[in-house]
Structures are given as structure tokens and as C-alpha cells.
């Protein structure tokens, strides 16, 4: 064990989580009138340009999670402000509040010095604030011009017909301002992602936006396209547009950003000048000085190798991935969003097709073409999106636990032996301490942590001994996380082989005997759990191919 100060309890476990993107309704208390928050004046590197947006003392809680704790941010005209932090630091929640998707519990937003409320995304647009999401929001079958001016098309003939000539002319004008060359009438679905992004930017500009939020804009672009995007950004800056740029990519930040605001665990950490701050310094701000308490069981699984993957390739998400997994071991998979970790797990599990690569299970080469094949080989996959892929929410706890094993509960190959189902479900509910009044409870009524236990139970009952946990504590509140950690460690101690995919570095470090780090579909390194630090993982996780050479 490295000499670490006798630190506070797990910072990782307290990590604030942004609500999942697919959340149907922002389940939150209505905002009581935004209280004037006694925010201290922001001491940041000053620029001479006027402040266009200021957010003060923003506080936001979701059930079980305190996502933002009195966070502040200020943005000047004509600058690029990079917003940085680990997954779950609260960047997205902050931006959703700025763009009216969420309402803050406390705090205020000032635009051009005047306090405003942003009750919905439309209001944000009217204030001149636009956001370009990582997943673009375009209608693929409409033309670029139609996408940009949807709902605002110029009309003619008593307002009955859209005036396509005027529409295209207006679009051409916007594109000209951006110095891009896209025909206004081209169907958006036929454009490259990079050009689609430019259409989104054009749409934002057509609203006369003075603030543009860009969420990981380069994640799907190649080198040349990134250059072009940066040129557009530079141009926007010159026209006085202020840009909030969310990214994980250190090199981009250095190139494009003027200032950097760092968040961690739902808190504002610092704002620094991009030009004069070193990468190392930024990373340390992001991960925090306090290093994580490791209550990890000592000794890695010394057992035999149970899984070996060599040269796995699939599409552009998985590039030549190899690793091995031992009995009794917890192997961490770290990396940024979109690094390909989930894809690797799904490919091995047979959920998605693979292009090439070999999988050896207990030393035997195995052909896994479907999840059914995988399960037969003792593999289990616990999805990050529990409600969609993990649990059948409308079925009972019992039926969820027993689902993969139903075939075993048959008399005359047909009749379900309910008594045996009840008995086994009951046993596993007890063993994993699932908090449910009884095994017939509908699963959707359980808390996230208990749902996760139900999913774990179903694989244990099915005798799976190689378990892939994808974000095992996503959407689970703080108290339950520790319990899930303990459970994983016990399972490993009992001889199960476990892969933990997690975007929360403290979680990976705390749990793993070994850590595989991925970036852009490739394995960029493997660290021993004992020596791994958040800095070393981050370094590998941002090792893009161009830099790796």
C-alpha cells in the first residue's frame, strides 16, 4: 500500500451523479422562488470583456443525490470557457439548468447582469442561450434549411405555404457567416456527423445566440473535422459569441479554451487560465488532492485464468482489445465516456456481433454468438442501463431472479414449479439482503440498489462465474454503494471472476486488483490496482492515438 494519509471516508462514494439522460421526467421538487444567494464575488482570472452569463450559488438535488452544491460560473463575451470534471462531477446538470431543462433548487442566473429565470429550453433560446448536445437533435429526413428554421419557416401565400426560396436564402446567409459550404437543401441524414454538427451550430446562430454550450463536440469527429470546427469556433469568438465547451480532452482545452472552470463532486473547484496552467495541474484539480481510501481486499486473485480475450475488433468502437481475467479477481475497466468499455463487454457477451477476435473461457476457445451462448458458458453481463437491459420492471422480484434459470424449474418440461421458484428466490433475497417485503413485489417498486441486487442474484442463481458489471453503482444512492462494493468483493473472494466497468475513478481504484484503461476503442494500458492513481488512469484514458505515437 502506498503511503497515503489517513484520509476521510471514500470521496468516490459521494460522487454526485447527473440524472441519466433518458430520464422521462425530471422528478424534483418545484423550485421555490430563486433565493438571492450570498455568493462571494468570483475571483477568477479576469478578462476585459463584459460578462454575459453568471450563475451563482446553484444548488440541485435529485432523490438520493445532491448533484450540485452552490456552484458558480461566469462567462464573458467572445471567450471559450472549458467546463471540466470527471463523469458525474455535475457539468451536465449545470448546463441543463442554464438551458432550462432542470430548475435549480437555489441560486440565480444573470444574463447581461440582469437576473432571469429559465423555466424551459425555449426560454433559454429566447435569452440567446443554445446548447449543442453530444447526440445531435436533427431530423435526418429534412433538409439542412428545414432543420435550422423548423417552426420558423418563412411563409408565403397567406401563410399557407413555406417559402422554400427564402428559406434556402436565409440558410445560405447563416452558413456564409460561418464560412461553411453546405447546400441548404441537402438532406441532413446524408451529411457527415461533422457537417451535421455545423448545421446544429447554424441553427443556434439563427436564433442570434450569444451563448453556445457545446457538449463534447469532437467526440465523433476526425482530426481534419476537428480543425474545421475549431476554425468556426474562433470565428464565432471574433463575433462576440461566448462558448461553454465541455470536454475531457486535455489537448483540445489547451488549444481552444481561454479559461477553464473545474468541477468535482458537484462542487465548484476553481477557474484557471488555459494558457498558463499545466495539464498536470488541471488533472489534479479534477480528481482532487484527497486520494481514495482503499479498503480493497489484499492480494489479487491468484486463481487460474478463466477468461482470455485476444484481438477483439468490432466496428469503430473496439480496436484490437486483449485482456485476461483470473478466478477471484476484480478487473477494472476505466476510460472516458465512449472509450468502448461497454461495447467490449457486450461483444464478449454476444449481445453485439464482433468482427474478429478470440475468446477463451477456462482455457477453451469459445464461440459466443448470442447472450444465450454466453450464459451457457457462465458469462453474465449487468448493464449500465438497468431499467432497459437489466431488469423486467413489471415482473416480480422472484421472476426476475429466476428468469435465466426458468428452464430448471420445469416438471414435464412445461409446468413451472412455483414452489421451487419461491424457495430459491427467497433464499437469494436473503443471501444478498434485498430489501423487499416479499419475493412477489413488482421490481419497479424497489430502489436502484435493490434492483441491482436482484440482477446480481439472477446471475448467481444461474451459476455464472464470470460477471461483467457495467457501472454497477449508477443511479444508486451513497449508502447502497458501499453495500454493492462489499458484495462484489465477497463474490470475488468466493472465486467469481469479475469485470467492473466504471466511469468513477475512485470506484475503479477501490475495487480493482488490476485496471485496464481504454481510450477510443483501444486498450491504452494496464495498471496494477495497488499502484493506480486517478492521475495515472486519466493519463492513459486521454491517450489519444495521435499522441500515443
Amino acid at each position, binding site marked *: 500500500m502506498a503511503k497515503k494519509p489517513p484520509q476521510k471516508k471514500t470521496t468516490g462514494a459521494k460522487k454526485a451523479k447527473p440524472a441519466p439522460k433518458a430520464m422521462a421526467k425530471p422528478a424534483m421538487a418545484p423550485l421555490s422562488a430563486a433565493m438571492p444567494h450570498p455568493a462571494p464575488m468570483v475571483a477568477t482570472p479576469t478578462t476585459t470583456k463584459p460578462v454575459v452569463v453568471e450563475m451563482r450559488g446553484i444548488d440541485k438535488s435529485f432523490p438520493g443525490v445532491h448533484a450540485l452544491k452552490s456552484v458558480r460560473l461566469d462567462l464573458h463575451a467572445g471567450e471559450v470557457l472549458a467546463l471540466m470534471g470527471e463523469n458525474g462531477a455535475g457539468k451536465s446538470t449545470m448546463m441543463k439548468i442554464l438551458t432550462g431543462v432542470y430548475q435549480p433548487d437555489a441560486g440565480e442566473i444573470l444574463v447581461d447582469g440582469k437576473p432571469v429565470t429559465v423555466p424551459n429550453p425555449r426560454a433559454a433560446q429566447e435569452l440567446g442561450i443554445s446548447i449543442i448536445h453530444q447526440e445531435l437533435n436533427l431530423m435526418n429526413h429534412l433538409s439542412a434549411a428545414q432543420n435550422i428554421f423548423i417552426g420558423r419557416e418563412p411563409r408565403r401565400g397567406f401563410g399557407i405555404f413555406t417559402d422554400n426560396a427564402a428559406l434556402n436564402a436565409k440558410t445560405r446567409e447563416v452558413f456564409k457567416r460561418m464560412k461553411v459550404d453546405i447546400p441548404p437543401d441537402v438532406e441532413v441524414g446524408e451529411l457527415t456527423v461533422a457537417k451535421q454538427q455545423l448545421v446544429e451550430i447554424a441553427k443556434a446562430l439563427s436564433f442570434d445566440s450569444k451563448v453556445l454550450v457545446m457538449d463534447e463536440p469532437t467526440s465523433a469527429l476526425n482530426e481534419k473535422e476537428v480543425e474545421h470546427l475549431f476554425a468556426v469556433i474562433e470565428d464565432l469568438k471574433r463575433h462576440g459569441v461566448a462558448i461553454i465547451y465541455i470536454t475531457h480532452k486535455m489537448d483540445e482545452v489547451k488549444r481552444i479554451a481561454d479559461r477553464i472552470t473545474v468541477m468535482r463532486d458537484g462542487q465548484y473547484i476553481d477557474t484557471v487560465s488555459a494558457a498558463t496552467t499545466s495539464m498536470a495541474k488541471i488533472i489534479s484539480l479534477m480528481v482532487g488532492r484527497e486520494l481514495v481510501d482503499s479498503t480493497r481486499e489484499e492480494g489479487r486473485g491468484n486463481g487460474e485464468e478463466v477468461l482470455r480475450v485476444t484481438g477483439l475488433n468490432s466496428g469503430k468502437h473496439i480496436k484490437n482489445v486483449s485482456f485476461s481475467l483470473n478466478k477471484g479477481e476484480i478487473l477494472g475497466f476505466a476510460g472516458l465516456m465512449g472509450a468502448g468499455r461497454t461495447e467490449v463487454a457486450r461483444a464478449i*457477451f454476444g*449481445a453485439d456481433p464482433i468482427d474478429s477476435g478470440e475468446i477463451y473461457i477456462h482455457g477453451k476457445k469459445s464461440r459466443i454468438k*448470442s*447472450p*444465450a451462448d*454466453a*450464459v*451457457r458458458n457462465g458469462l*453474465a*453481463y449487468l*448493464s449500465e442501463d438497468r431499467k*432497459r*437491459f*437489466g*431488469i*423486467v*420492471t*413489471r*415482473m416480480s422480484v422472484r*421472476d426476475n431472479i429466476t*428468469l*435465466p434459470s*426458468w*428452464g430448471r*424449474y*420445469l416438471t414435464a418440461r*412445461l*409446468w*413451472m414449479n412455483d414452489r421451487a421458484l419461491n424457495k430459491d428466490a427467497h433464499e437469494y433475497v436473503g443471501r444478498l439482503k434485498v*430489501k*423487499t*417485503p*416479499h419475493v*412477489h*413485489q*413488482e421490481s419497479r*417498486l424497489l*430502489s436502484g*440498489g*435493490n434492483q441491482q441486487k436482484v440482477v446480481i442474484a*439472477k446471475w448467481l442463481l*444461474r451459476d455464472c462465474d464470470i460477471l461483467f458489471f457495467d457501472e454497477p453503482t449508477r443511479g444508486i*444512492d451513497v*449508502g*447502497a454503494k458501499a*453495500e454493492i462494493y462489499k458484495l462484489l468483493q465477497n463474490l470475488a473472494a468466493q472465486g467469481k471472476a469479475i469485470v467492473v466497468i466504471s466511469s468513477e475513478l475512485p470506484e475503479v481504484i477501490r475495487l480493482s486488483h488490476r485496471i485496464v484503461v481504454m481510450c477510443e476503442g483501444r486498450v491504452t494500458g494496464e495498471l496494477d490496482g495497488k499502484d493506480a492513481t486517478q492521475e495515472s488512469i486519466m493519463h492513459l484514458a486521454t491517450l489519444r492515438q495521435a499522441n500515443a505515437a
Partner: protein
Amino acid sequence: MSTISATTVENEKSSFFSVAALQKVVAFAVLLLLVAFFSLASPVFFSWLNAVNIMTATAVNAVLGIACTLVIISAGIDLSVGTLMTFCAIITGILSINWGLPLWIGIPGALLTGALVGAFSGSLIAYLKIPPFIVTLGFMRALYGLNVVVTSAKPIYFDDKPDYAFISPDSTISLLIPGLGIPNAVFVMILVAIFAAIILNRTILGRFIYALGSNEEAVRLSGVNVNLWKVGIYALSGMICGIAGLLLSSRLGSAQPAIGMGYELDAIAATVIGGTSLTGGRGTILGTIIGAFIISILSNGLTVLSVADEWKYVATGAILVTAVYVDMRLRNRS
């Protein structure tokens, strides 16, 4: 984490008790209301003879409704039940009349045909991933054409096999209790309902019907061979269409090639009125039986009241939309 609070326990109660039962309660309430209304409005409606009429008129639609219910709970849809029904009846006709084989071959022939055709459409849905709406729409039309072609558009009459009437119009129970007059078709309907309910609630196939309807991807990722079970579901549904074909052709004493289209919509209406969710995961056989009875009581009652024919359709449509709406509201509240 806090322990299970009082509210969750209450939730549990409502979910275990009523959510499943509720939809039946709604449909059943509509049924009783209709009976009460027609009984008050017409002196002749509430009679044993008319009750037997209604039961007889319900049998075929209820059995087809059951076939639809199984598929719809699994989040599929089957538009081909009507013409498949006719196809199966024609096969029985060909086997037992044209080829002169005994009925104990001809009758299972219908069930086997239904199961095979169902398995075929199920395979296209499961393995080729063609949406069930499209596959069964295609089968609906293709089977209609085949029905006309294989019979040269002539009905097949069962006059050579008078015993065939045993399936539907004969009334065995009247031999025991004279004057009861319930035709065997009604008992066949009840048997099919019990059979389907047992499949749904007691067998692994039934469990997968509900599971697939609730979250197919989660089931697939649980290592279940989802495709195989889908084929099974459509095969079972097809077999039940075969039973409906026997009922109809036995009642008519003939297999009529042109009949069948349009029956699927009545069957789906019965299913939906009975509380089965078109998005899958929810539904009961009893609900569908009640739904089928609602449709035929409405039709019979309005005829008894001498309400013009066209209003029957208006009333069925209104009941369909209302029943589903009330059902949705009740569910949202729970």
C-alpha cells in the same frame, strides 16, 4: 437506505391485488352495465334463450380473441387470425371430405395447420426481424388468396360427416339437462380459455409471453433464446385459430373460403376492451372473454331494441375507446 416504508407495502398490495384485477373489473362493470341497460330497455332481452344466443354468437370471436391475446401480451400483433381460421377449416374440409379421411384426422389437421402457419409467421418475425404487423398483414392477405384458390372459391360442405356438428351446434349438455340448449361451441370456448389461461399462468411459455412483452431486450440479455419462444407463441396462437376454424365451419356445416377477413379486428377489439395492453406485458384471458361478450351483447341488445345496424358499429367503437381510456386512467393513478 431506508427500509421498505409503509407506502411501498401499500403499493405492493395494490399491485398484487388489483392492477391485474382492475382491468377485468372495469370490463366486467361495462358488461354488467350493458346487461342491466338492455334488460331495462327491452322486456325480451333478459331471457335464457337470448343468453344462449349471445353465448353462441360470442364463441368464435372469443377464441380468436384468445389467440390474439397471447400474441399481444408478448408485444406482438396478429392480423392473420381471421383468414388463418378459415384456412384451417378448409384443411379439415379437404382432409375429411375431399379425401374422405375420418374426422379424428381432419380435426387435429386444423390444429396442426394453424400451429405450422403460426410457426412460419413467427419465424419470419423472430429470425428475419420483420415487424409482426407487416408479417401478419401479409399472411392475412396471402391466406385469403390461398383459401379461394385451394377451394376453387367453392365452399366445402360437411354433409358427409354429420358428426362434425358435434363441435359447435350440437348441444351435448341438453341430453343431460333438457332445455338448457347451450351448444357445444360455448364449452369449446370455455375449454380453450382454461387451456390458454393455464398456459399463460402455469407454464414456462406463459412466463415468457409476459416477460417478452415487458422487456424483450432484458430477456435476451438474460441468455434466453428469445427467437425460439417467439416462434412458440405464434404457433400456439395459430393452433387456437385452428380451433376457431373448427367452431365456425362446424356451425355453418361448411368451410366458406371467402369468410375470415374482418374477424381479426373484432378479435383485437375484444382483446383490448378486456384490458390487454397493445404495448405488451399485460393482459388476461378472462378479460378477453369479457371483451368478446361485451361486443356480442352490444350487437344483440341493439338489434333486440331495433336500433339501426349502423349504430351498432358506432356503439362498439365508442365502447372500445372508452374502455381503454378508463383503463389507462385507473392504471396511471395506481
